[in-house]
């Protein structure tokens, strides 16, 4: 048996594949809403808030998962507020949160036992380092979050597309916004300390970006986004094993490549 196949079949890689598949499905699905709602950087900021939660947990001895989810939920409640843009833009607030919590993560981690190594792990993560007992936990959470997104898809879509009409129709849009951010933030909070900020952010942006270029109906966009994420996960993991490359970066390269090819295809078709 070739060495790469032996590596591929190893429990470590198989666990990483299982985790990657559920991240791809949930991230690909949720990412369509994230891109359509133009809150791409809220995803990054929420991930960074969670990362600060993990850094704090490692410093004071809390459970990282508990702290990450708690921080993500507080961040979700914050971003679900209807910010007026009279005095400053929403982007500026998102940027301020991202920068503040990035700095906080570095400061907290620098005083921890693992120092900057922990910061590096939070940023880049390592899907190959996920403990076997975490795999089923991530799947249960992932399926739960996915079920909520699927069951409430029409309400999330209406509130995202036309909040004012939704209010006129009797929907409590602040509650629906909070529910959306709660799902997104909770998911990010749980997986960030396992796979890192960059991979989560990638799943939320790149597959949906490519899908929006080629698919014309919302259901097709969601389908293509999930397919993009799944393809990039499997191909990225396989290529990283074959050529001994960093897994997260290889997966992200595949996601970017797919988005690039789909953008190019859409431009060629439009001509």
């Amino acid at each position: 048996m070739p060495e790469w196949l032996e590596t591929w079949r190893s429990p470590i890689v198989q666990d990483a594949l299982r985790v990657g598949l559920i991240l791809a499905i949930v991230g690909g699905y949720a990412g369509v809403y994230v891109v359509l709602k133009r809150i791409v950087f809220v995803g990054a900021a929420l991930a960074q808030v969670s990362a600060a939660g993990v850094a704090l947990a490692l410093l004071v001895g809390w459970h990282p998962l508990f702290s990450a989810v708690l921080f993500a939920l507080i961040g979700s409640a914050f971003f679900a507020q209807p910010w007026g843009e009279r005095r400053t833009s929403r982007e500026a607030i998102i940027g301020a949160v991202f920068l503040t919590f990035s700095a906080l993560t570095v400061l907290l981690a620098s005083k921890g036992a693992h120092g900057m190594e922990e910061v590096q792990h939070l940023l880049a993560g390592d899907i190959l380092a996920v403990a076997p007992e975490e795999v089923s936990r991530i799947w249960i959470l992932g399926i739960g979050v996915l079920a909520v997104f699927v069951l409430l898809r029409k309400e999330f879509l209406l509130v995202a597309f036309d909040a004012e009409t939704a209010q006129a129709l009797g929907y409590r849009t602040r509650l629906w916004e909070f529910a959306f951010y709660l799902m997104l933030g909770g998911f990010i909070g749980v997986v960030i300390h396992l796979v890192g900020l960059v991979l989560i952010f990638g799943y939320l942006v790149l597959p949906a970006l490519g899908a929006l270029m080629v698919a014309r109906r919302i259901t097709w966009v969601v389908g293509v986004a999930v397919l993009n994420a799944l393809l990039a996960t499997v191909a990225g993991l396989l290529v990283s094993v074959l050529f001994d490359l960093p897994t997260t970066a290889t997966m992200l390269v595949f996601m970017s490549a797919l988005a690039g090819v789909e953008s190019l295809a859409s431009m060629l078709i439009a001509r």
Partner: protein
Amino acid sequence: MSQPLVQFREVRLGYGRQVVLDNVNMGILRGDFFGLVGPNGSGKTTLLRCLLGILKPLSGQVTRAVGLRIGYVPQREMLDPLFPLTALDIVLMGRYPRVGVFRSPSKGDREFAMLCLQQVGLADSAHKLYRELSGGQRQRVLIARALAVEPNLLVLDEPTNGLDLPTEASILGLIEQFHAQSGLTIVLVSHVLNVVARYATRMGVLLDGRLLVGEAEQLMQERVLEEVYGVPVCVQRLEHHYLVAVREVEEGCPNA
């Protein structure tokens, strides 16, 4: 006299401590074609939000008739064309409150949505993407969505903004047709006085944080409009049409 669909009694509207409109008294009667006009920044949106139930009054009372269903047509510019939604997808949104949470629209909901598209003359464009439609077609889609609510009150916010003249006329003609044929109660919000006065039977004019309500004929007077807009104006009436124009101070009006 029938009970109003919506009644405002001594209503004060605003945000936090800032009062935008005070002492608002008006009723939207069944079968009304009510036009709401006022200069930019006069509080049209604030009053509209309260009418829709989005904004609670600071004081006073707003009562709504039992079984009131509002079909709302927002300004087209508020909607993001990035969303890959077809005309039918958007019209179906009007059915969501009836469909309920956790459920998908039924075949009957789809048929009703198609019927609404047919009523606005867009049945052939049901599967076209909203972003690929013209301004007038998008407006029709939003009207169809409001009709899908099966409303007894249709509220339209600046429906003719950014439309060319023939499209504007066709959209307003469509609204008038719903009013005339099915007796649908209409509230038309616009900053274009001529448009509102042409179609509305009753009008509300916003002035310095107050609302003047009356028959269109009563309010389309030079004296009233000069007070509202703060500039000398001329008003001419040609059958159902009103022509309002700003005049130079030293000039008289053509019909004066």
